[in-house]
């Protein structure tokens, strides 16, 4: 039986009168690539911040990697990885120094850090650049390194916030190769994107409109349910209904 790694029940966040996320109830399973779509202002970031233990919900419940978002936010942070389009790598540290830094932050032993560094550098074929400053790496490599660093403490879930914005079509696809490989190893991938073709690569996709989840299913089922040829059409059909302007 598939095991659940994220489970929310009527998860809600209000800012004053404004309901940013309204009674979200969904489950994410181990090893799946879960696409989290929505227009700007639909409430994606708010939902993601609650799941990462960075923002306390107003009401409802959520368990992430087996921990409660209200009481065990610190435990959640130890068990998830996070990467956004703004890389969190230190530009003036080398590749190895960045891995060592993040390994240290997540409490890996020196031995583990050494092993992990060698493994990552070999995997990414960065042997020639291991002692180069991150600022000297091409964008595509930075992105792959950033992804690997977010996995350095072997989290159960990795959250990717628009990881492929602005990169060339080949690098974008190579990045998805990494995502597939991680999911293949049993890591759950929770990803947001503005590229609708990428939503087709997900195991399941949820679409948020005005703070609520309007649709959640496999891309195949969503397309047949909405009688659409592509996920792009599904998304446009739903997002056009949005009343809330992204103000």
């Amino acid at each position, binding site marked *: 039986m598939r095991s659940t790694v994220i489970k929310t029940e009527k998860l809600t966040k209000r800012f004053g009168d404004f309901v940013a996320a309204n009674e979200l109830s969904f489950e994410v399973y181990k090893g799946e690539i879960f696409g989290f779509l*929505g*227009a*700007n*202002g639909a409430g994606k970031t708010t939902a993601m911040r609650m799941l990462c233990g960075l923002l306390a919900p107003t009401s409802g419940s959520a368990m992430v990697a087996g921990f409660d978002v209200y009481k065990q936010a610190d435990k959640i942070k130890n068990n998830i990885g996070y990467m956004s*389009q703004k890389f969190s790598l230190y530009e003036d540290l080398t590749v190895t120094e960045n891995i060592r830094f993040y390994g240290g932050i997540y409490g890996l032993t020196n031995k583990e850090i050494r092993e992990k560094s060698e493994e990552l550098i070999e995997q990414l074929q960065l042997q020639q650049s291991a002692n180069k400053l991150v600022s000297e790496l*091409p*964008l595509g490599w930075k992105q792959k390194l950033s992804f690997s660093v977010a996995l350095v403490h072997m989290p159960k879930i990795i959250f990717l916030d*628009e990881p492929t*914005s*602005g*990169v*060339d*079509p*080949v*690098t974008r*696809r*190579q990045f*998805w*190769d990494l995502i*597939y490989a991680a999911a*293949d190893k049993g890591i759950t991938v929770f990803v947001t994107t*503005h*590229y*609708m*073709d990428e939503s*087709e*690569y997900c195991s399941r996709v949820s679409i948020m409109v005005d703070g609520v989840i309007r649709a959640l299913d496999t*891309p*195949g089922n969503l397309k047949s349910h909405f009688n659409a040829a*592509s*996920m*792009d059409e599904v*998304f*446009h059909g739903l*997002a*056009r209904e*949005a009343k809330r*302007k*992204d*103000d």
Partner: protein
Amino acid sequence: MASVTLQNIAKKYDEGKVLAVDDVSFSVEQGELFGLIGPDGAGKSSIFRILTTLLLPDAGTATVDGYDVVKDYKTIRGRIGYMPGKFSLYQDLTVEENLNFFATVFDTTIEENYELIKDIYVQIEPFKDRRAGKLSGGMKQKLALSCALIHKPSVLFLDEPTTGVDAVSRKEFWEMLRRLKQKGITILVSTPYMDEATLCDRIALIQEGKLLSIDTPGQLVANYPTTLYAVRSDSMYKLLNDLRMFEDTDHCFTFGDYLHLSFKSAGPGQEQKLLQYLAGKGQTNVELKVTTPTVEDCFIKLTGTTAA
């Protein structure tokens, strides 16, 4: 008359170590909607900054509206509208104050050119007393476009106006651009989203400072040199790896719910051979069909990238 011309423009950074723009020449006709398409770091912003007279080229010449970007920079600045990639309005002025400021700087008034910005500005007018820094991404974008248009420029430069914007708002933004084009304004727009390229009259594909191609989107696709196949099966990730191992494969990449595959050279019985190979790999429900390339396929082909 050409509205914008570039002749052998080059720009280096970091004491000549980084060649950001490498011998680029093209021209844009009056009233054209012209797209500069390429990933981050391709040189798009450098080209825009040279054309808007904010950066001196190391070599080559360029003109905007018939004026030279180096000698006649002051004249050019009065005739163009520029929306940089980074939001550059005054965050602590209100929506209306920003618009008034830009109108005044260009020696005009909001009333004089209201007709031009009306479509766009009405959408943010309810918030005209809000500070620009407090606007959402989509509204900042509309305000920045209004400010870039308020002096009725003859050429509009938009540097990545849709980056980070969701698919629906992106489509709306492009509809606004089509309407502006009908008013006779020449528009140069850059974007990393290749699907937007089809909305331009002509596009230049750019990578690492070099132009790969300049054409209409339709012609670009028609010139795709080989047959492109779309393939899918029950097990897509395994299929990707299997196809990349196939001896005749030139490259294979994910494209939505299909994989796009092209062969090194066309040969008789190739399709049959591939289907047999995939059956041997245990693939089930294999679908193989010829497909029309997208602009992204063309970009991949032009950059000469083989299977990863």
